[in-house]
Protein backbone atom coordinates (compact mmCIF):
# COMPACT_ATOMS: atom_id res chain seq x y z
CA UNK A 1 0.00 0.00 0.00
CA UNK A 2 2.85 2.38 0.76
CA UNK A 3 3.49 3.04 -2.93
CA UNK A 4 -0.02 4.51 -3.18
CA UNK A 5 0.62 7.17 -0.58
CA UNK A 6 1.14 10.46 -2.35
CA UNK A 7 2.74 13.70 -1.38
CA UNK A 8 2.04 17.08 -2.85
CA UNK A 9 3.16 20.62 -2.45
CA UNK A 10 1.87 23.94 -3.66
CA UNK A 11 2.93 27.50 -3.07
CA UNK A 12 1.19 30.75 -3.84
CA UNK A 13 1.84 34.40 -3.19
CA UNK A 14 -1.58 35.81 -2.40
CA UNK A 15 -2.26 39.07 -4.22
CA UNK A 16 -1.98 41.86 -1.67
CA UNK A 17 -1.18 39.28 0.96
CA UNK A 18 1.48 36.81 1.92
CA UNK A 19 3.13 33.64 0.70
CA UNK A 20 1.43 30.36 1.62
CA UNK A 21 2.90 26.93 1.05
CA UNK A 22 1.02 23.70 1.69
CA UNK A 23 2.71 20.30 1.90
CA UNK A 24 0.33 17.37 2.08
CA UNK A 25 0.47 13.60 2.47
CA UNK A 26 -2.63 11.79 1.21
CA UNK A 27 -4.17 8.60 -0.09
CA UNK A 28 -7.93 8.57 -0.64
CA UNK A 29 -8.04 11.08 2.21
CA UNK A 30 -5.68 13.65 3.63
CA UNK A 31 -3.25 12.15 6.10
CA UNK A 32 -1.43 15.29 7.18
CA UNK A 33 -0.94 18.89 6.12
CA UNK A 34 1.82 21.37 6.86
CA UNK A 35 1.15 25.05 6.25
CA UNK A 36 4.14 27.38 6.05
CA UNK A 37 4.77 30.90 4.83
CA UNK A 38 5.37 34.51 5.79
CA UNK A 39 1.81 35.18 6.94
CA UNK A 40 0.56 36.14 10.39
CA UNK A 41 -1.87 34.22 12.57
CA UNK A 42 -2.96 35.42 15.99
CA UNK A 43 -2.70 33.35 18.14
CA UNK A 44 0.20 31.64 16.39
CA UNK A 45 -0.16 28.23 17.98
CA UNK A 46 -3.51 27.81 16.26
CA UNK A 47 -1.74 26.77 13.07
CA UNK A 48 -1.61 23.17 14.30
CA UNK A 49 -5.39 23.24 14.93
CA UNK A 50 -5.95 24.41 11.36
CA UNK A 51 -3.66 21.68 10.01
CA UNK A 52 -5.43 19.04 12.09
CA UNK A 53 -8.84 20.29 10.95
CA UNK A 54 -7.91 19.38 7.37
CA UNK A 55 -6.66 15.87 8.13
CA UNK A 56 -9.11 13.12 7.27
CA UNK A 57 -10.79 15.03 4.45
CA UNK A 58 -11.69 12.67 1.62
CA UNK A 59 -10.30 12.99 -1.91
CA UNK A 60 -11.69 14.54 -4.07
CA UNK A 61 -11.72 17.45 -1.69
CA UNK A 62 -14.80 19.54 -1.06
CA UNK A 63 -13.61 23.13 -1.20
CA UNK A 64 -16.72 24.42 0.54
CA UNK A 65 -16.46 21.92 3.39
CA UNK A 66 -12.78 22.63 4.02
CA UNK A 67 -13.24 26.40 4.02
CA UNK A 68 -15.97 25.89 6.62
CA UNK A 69 -13.63 23.76 8.73
CA UNK A 70 -10.94 26.45 8.75
CA UNK A 71 -13.49 29.19 9.38
CA UNK A 72 -14.80 27.22 12.36
CA UNK A 73 -11.33 26.90 13.89
CA UNK A 74 -10.75 30.63 13.50
CA UNK A 75 -14.12 31.64 14.90
CA UNK A 76 -14.02 29.19 17.81
CA UNK A 77 -10.65 30.59 18.86
CA UNK A 78 -11.26 34.27 18.06
CA UNK A 79 -8.30 34.09 15.72
CA UNK A 80 -7.10 36.45 13.03
CA UNK A 81 -5.20 35.53 9.88
CA UNK A 82 -3.32 38.25 8.06
CA UNK A 83 -2.02 37.58 4.58
CA UNK A 84 -4.47 35.01 3.25
CA UNK A 85 -8.08 33.92 3.64
CA UNK A 86 -9.40 30.43 4.42
CA UNK A 87 -10.50 30.20 0.76
CA UNK A 88 -6.95 31.07 -0.36
CA UNK A 89 -5.54 28.36 1.88
CA UNK A 90 -7.91 25.69 0.58
CA UNK A 91 -7.18 26.74 -2.99
CA UNK A 92 -3.47 26.11 -2.36
CA UNK A 93 -4.28 22.79 -0.69
CA UNK A 94 -6.36 21.68 -3.66
CA UNK A 95 -3.49 22.52 -5.99
CA UNK A 96 -1.20 20.42 -3.80
CA UNK A 97 -3.34 17.28 -4.18
CA UNK A 98 -3.75 17.54 -7.95
Amino acid sequence: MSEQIKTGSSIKKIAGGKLVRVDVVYYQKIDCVKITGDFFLHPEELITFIEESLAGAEIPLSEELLVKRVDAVLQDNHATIIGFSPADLISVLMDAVK
Partner: protein
Amino acid sequence: MKFRMIRFQKFSAFMNMAIDEAIMESIRSGTSLPTIRFYGWSPSAISIGFFQGLLNEVNLDACQQAGVDVVRRLTGGGAVYHDSDGEVTYSILGPVEIFPQKILDSYRVICSDILFALQLLGIQANFEPINDLTVDGKKISGNAQTRRSGVLLQHGTILYKVDVETMFSLLNVSKEKISDKLISSVKKRVTSVDSYSSAPIQDFFEAMEKGFSRDREIIYAEYTAEELSRARQLAEQKYSTNNWIGMR
Protein backbone atom coordinates in the same frame (compact mmCIF):
# COMPACT_ATOMS: atom_id res chain seq x y z
CA MET B 1 2.23 56.55 29.14
CA LYS B 2 5.71 55.84 30.55
CA PHE B 3 8.03 53.70 28.48
CA ARG B 4 11.47 52.35 29.30
CA MET B 5 13.87 52.95 26.43
CA ILE B 6 16.98 50.79 26.15
CA ARG B 7 19.71 52.07 23.88
CA PHE B 8 21.36 50.10 21.08
CA GLN B 9 23.35 47.04 22.10
CA LYS B 10 24.37 43.96 20.15
CA PHE B 11 23.52 40.42 21.19
CA SER B 12 23.44 37.01 19.55
CA ALA B 13 20.32 36.10 17.58
CA PHE B 14 19.26 33.70 20.31
CA MET B 15 19.64 36.30 23.05
CA ASN B 16 17.82 38.93 21.02
CA MET B 17 14.75 36.75 20.65
CA ALA B 18 15.04 35.55 24.25
CA ILE B 19 15.26 39.11 25.59
CA ASP B 20 12.01 39.99 23.83
CA GLU B 21 10.25 37.04 25.44
CA ALA B 22 11.80 37.77 28.86
CA ILE B 23 10.56 41.37 28.69
CA MET B 24 7.09 40.18 27.67
CA GLU B 25 7.08 38.07 30.83
CA SER B 26 8.25 40.92 33.03
CA ILE B 27 5.62 43.28 31.60
CA ARG B 28 2.96 40.62 32.09
CA SER B 29 3.97 40.21 35.74
CA GLY B 30 4.01 43.97 36.26
CA THR B 31 7.70 44.20 37.09
CA SER B 32 8.74 46.18 34.00
CA LEU B 33 7.40 49.20 32.19
CA PRO B 34 6.33 49.04 28.57
CA THR B 35 9.64 48.94 26.75
CA ILE B 36 11.31 50.12 23.56
CA ARG B 37 14.68 48.54 22.84
CA PHE B 38 17.14 49.00 20.02
CA TYR B 39 19.59 46.27 19.19
CA GLY B 40 21.95 44.70 16.71
CA TRP B 41 23.05 41.19 15.94
CA SER B 42 26.48 39.72 16.58
CA PRO B 43 27.28 37.61 14.70
CA SER B 44 25.09 38.45 11.70
CA ALA B 45 22.01 36.27 11.59
CA ILE B 46 18.95 35.17 9.68
CA SER B 47 15.66 35.29 11.53
CA ILE B 48 12.74 33.39 10.08
CA GLY B 49 9.06 33.92 10.77
CA PHE B 50 7.17 31.67 13.18
CA PHE B 51 5.37 29.86 10.34
CA GLN B 52 8.18 29.56 7.84
CA GLY B 53 9.79 26.30 6.83
CA LEU B 54 13.46 26.49 7.80
CA LEU B 55 14.72 24.57 4.79
CA ASN B 56 12.39 26.45 2.43
CA GLU B 57 13.79 29.80 3.45
CA VAL B 58 17.40 29.43 4.49
CA ASN B 59 20.53 28.17 2.77
CA LEU B 60 21.93 26.50 5.87
CA ASP B 61 25.24 25.52 4.28
CA ALA B 62 25.87 29.10 3.17
CA CYS B 63 24.98 30.37 6.65
CA GLN B 64 27.35 27.92 8.29
CA GLN B 65 30.17 28.85 5.92
CA ALA B 66 29.59 32.56 6.55
CA GLY B 67 29.29 32.17 10.34
CA VAL B 68 25.72 33.44 10.25
CA ASP B 69 23.34 32.24 12.97
CA VAL B 70 19.75 31.22 12.23
CA VAL B 71 16.89 31.74 14.65
CA ARG B 72 13.11 31.40 14.53
CA ARG B 73 11.10 34.38 15.77
CA LEU B 74 8.03 34.44 18.00
CA THR B 75 6.39 36.50 15.27
CA GLY B 76 5.14 35.63 11.82
CA GLY B 77 6.35 37.32 8.67
CA GLY B 78 9.30 36.64 6.42
CA ALA B 79 12.95 35.74 6.70
CA VAL B 80 15.31 38.62 7.43
CA TYR B 81 19.07 38.91 7.10
CA HIS B 82 20.39 40.88 10.06
CA ASP B 83 23.79 42.23 9.00
CA SER B 84 25.84 42.90 12.11
CA ASP B 85 26.93 46.26 10.72
CA GLY B 86 24.04 47.15 8.47
CA GLU B 87 20.83 47.58 10.39
CA VAL B 88 19.01 48.54 13.55
CA THR B 89 16.33 46.36 15.03
CA TYR B 90 13.76 47.69 17.47
CA SER B 91 11.23 46.02 19.70
CA ILE B 92 8.30 47.73 21.32
CA LEU B 93 6.50 45.83 24.04
CA GLY B 94 3.57 46.67 26.27
CA PRO B 95 0.12 45.65 27.45
CA VAL B 96 -2.17 45.21 24.44
CA GLU B 97 -4.56 47.83 25.84
CA ILE B 98 -2.14 50.67 25.14
CA PHE B 99 -2.06 49.90 21.41
CA PRO B 100 -4.82 50.02 18.81
CA GLN B 101 -6.97 46.91 19.06
CA LYS B 102 -6.93 46.20 15.34
CA ILE B 103 -3.65 44.63 14.31
CA LEU B 104 -3.25 46.59 11.09
CA ASP B 105 -3.99 49.83 12.93
CA SER B 106 -1.30 49.05 15.49
CA TYR B 107 1.23 48.37 12.71
CA ARG B 108 0.37 51.73 11.20
CA VAL B 109 0.70 53.60 14.50
CA ILE B 110 3.99 52.01 15.54
CA CYS B 111 5.47 52.27 12.06
CA SER B 112 4.65 56.00 12.03
CA ASP B 113 7.43 56.41 14.60
CA ILE B 114 9.88 54.90 12.15
CA LEU B 115 8.58 57.09 9.33
CA PHE B 116 9.19 60.10 11.57
CA ALA B 117 12.72 58.92 12.35
CA LEU B 118 13.51 58.48 8.67
CA GLN B 119 12.05 61.91 7.96
CA LEU B 120 14.54 63.40 10.43
CA LEU B 121 17.24 62.01 8.14
CA GLY B 122 15.54 63.53 5.11
CA ILE B 123 14.08 60.23 3.90
CA GLN B 124 10.47 60.16 2.76
CA ALA B 125 9.27 56.62 3.42
CA ASN B 126 5.80 55.16 3.19
CA PHE B 127 3.88 52.60 5.21
CA GLU B 128 2.95 49.78 2.88
CA PRO B 129 0.42 47.45 4.46
CA ILE B 130 0.62 44.87 5.78
CA ASN B 131 3.90 45.43 7.56
CA ASP B 132 6.53 47.09 5.39
CA LEU B 133 8.05 50.54 4.99
CA THR B 134 9.25 51.49 1.55
CA VAL B 135 11.18 54.27 -0.15
CA ASP B 136 10.58 54.68 -3.86
CA GLY B 137 8.80 51.35 -3.77
CA LYS B 138 11.78 49.55 -2.27
CA LYS B 139 11.60 47.93 1.15
CA ILE B 140 13.66 49.65 3.84
CA SER B 141 11.97 48.18 6.90
CA GLY B 142 10.05 45.03 7.75
CA ASN B 143 8.00 44.63 10.91
CA ALA B 144 6.25 41.80 12.70
CA GLN B 145 3.90 41.58 15.64
CA THR B 146 2.59 39.05 18.12
CA ARG B 147 0.17 39.34 20.99
CA ARG B 148 0.55 36.77 23.73
CA SER B 149 -1.27 36.64 27.04
CA GLY B 150 -2.08 40.32 27.07
CA VAL B 151 1.28 41.65 25.91
CA LEU B 152 2.04 43.02 22.45
CA LEU B 153 5.48 42.66 20.90
CA GLN B 154 6.31 44.34 17.63
CA HIS B 155 9.81 44.17 16.30
CA GLY B 156 11.30 45.28 13.04
CA THR B 157 14.46 46.12 11.22
CA ILE B 158 15.53 49.25 9.43
CA LEU B 159 18.33 48.77 6.94
CA TYR B 160 21.19 51.25 7.29
CA LYS B 161 23.29 49.73 4.55
CA VAL B 162 22.55 46.63 2.60
CA ASP B 163 24.77 43.88 1.27
CA VAL B 164 22.38 42.29 -1.18
CA GLU B 165 24.91 39.77 -2.48
CA THR B 166 25.37 38.30 0.99
CA MET B 167 21.67 38.62 1.87
CA PHE B 168 20.47 36.63 -1.10
CA SER B 169 23.26 34.08 -0.88
CA LEU B 170 21.89 33.14 2.54
CA LEU B 171 18.16 33.21 1.77
CA ASN B 172 16.16 31.03 -0.59
CA VAL B 173 13.84 33.59 -2.18
CA SER B 174 10.92 31.95 -3.98
CA LYS B 175 10.16 32.89 -7.56
CA GLU B 176 6.45 33.16 -6.67
CA LYS B 177 7.16 35.97 -4.26
CA ILE B 178 9.27 37.84 -6.74
CA SER B 179 6.94 37.53 -9.69
CA ASP B 180 4.03 38.92 -7.70
CA LYS B 181 5.78 42.21 -7.34
CA LEU B 182 6.68 42.24 -11.01
CA ILE B 183 10.28 42.91 -10.26
CA SER B 184 12.80 41.03 -12.31
CA SER B 185 15.61 41.14 -9.81
CA VAL B 186 15.35 40.60 -6.08
CA LYS B 187 18.18 43.06 -5.68
CA LYS B 188 15.86 45.84 -6.79
CA ARG B 189 13.41 45.15 -3.97
CA VAL B 190 15.38 46.49 -1.04
CA THR B 191 17.10 49.72 -0.14
CA SER B 192 18.78 51.26 2.87
CA VAL B 193 19.28 54.52 4.74
CA ASP B 194 22.73 55.10 3.27
CA SER B 195 21.26 55.21 -0.23
CA TYR B 196 19.31 58.34 0.69
CA SER B 197 21.23 59.97 3.52
CA SER B 198 24.87 60.62 4.38
CA ALA B 199 24.02 60.66 8.09
CA PRO B 200 26.45 58.63 10.20
CA ILE B 201 24.96 55.64 11.94
CA GLN B 202 25.00 57.46 15.30
CA ASP B 203 22.59 60.04 13.85
CA PHE B 204 20.42 57.18 12.66
CA PHE B 205 20.31 55.76 16.21
CA GLU B 206 19.37 59.17 17.59
CA ALA B 207 16.66 59.63 14.98
CA MET B 208 15.17 56.27 15.91
CA GLU B 209 15.13 57.22 19.58
CA LYS B 210 13.43 60.50 18.74
CA GLY B 211 10.91 58.76 16.53
CA PHE B 212 9.87 56.36 19.25
CA SER B 213 9.90 59.09 21.91
CA ARG B 214 7.10 61.06 20.30
CA ASP B 215 4.01 61.23 22.50
CA ARG B 216 5.59 58.95 25.08
CA GLU B 217 7.19 59.66 28.46
CA ILE B 218 10.58 58.02 28.09
CA ILE B 219 12.75 56.73 30.90
CA TYR B 220 16.18 55.58 29.74
CA ALA B 221 17.12 52.38 31.55
CA GLU B 222 18.80 49.03 31.14
CA TYR B 223 17.62 45.45 31.13
CA THR B 224 17.03 44.18 34.64
CA ALA B 225 19.23 41.41 36.00
CA GLU B 226 16.15 39.19 36.15
CA GLU B 227 15.34 39.81 32.48
CA LEU B 228 18.89 39.01 31.38
CA SER B 229 19.00 35.90 33.52
CA ARG B 230 15.68 34.68 32.13
CA ALA B 231 16.80 35.57 28.60
CA ARG B 232 19.98 33.51 28.95
CA GLN B 233 17.83 30.58 30.03
CA LEU B 234 15.45 31.02 27.08
CA ALA B 235 18.33 31.43 24.64
CA GLU B 236 19.90 28.18 25.79
CA GLN B 237 16.78 26.09 26.27
CA LYS B 238 14.57 27.40 23.47
CA TYR B 239 15.87 29.77 20.82
CA SER B 240 19.18 28.02 20.07
CA THR B 241 17.69 24.52 19.96
CA ASN B 242 16.99 22.52 16.82
CA ASN B 243 13.51 21.79 18.17
CA TRP B 244 12.63 25.46 17.98
CA ILE B 245 14.60 26.55 14.93
CA GLY B 246 13.54 23.54 12.86
CA MET B 247 10.00 23.43 14.22
CA ARG B 248 8.52 23.87 10.74
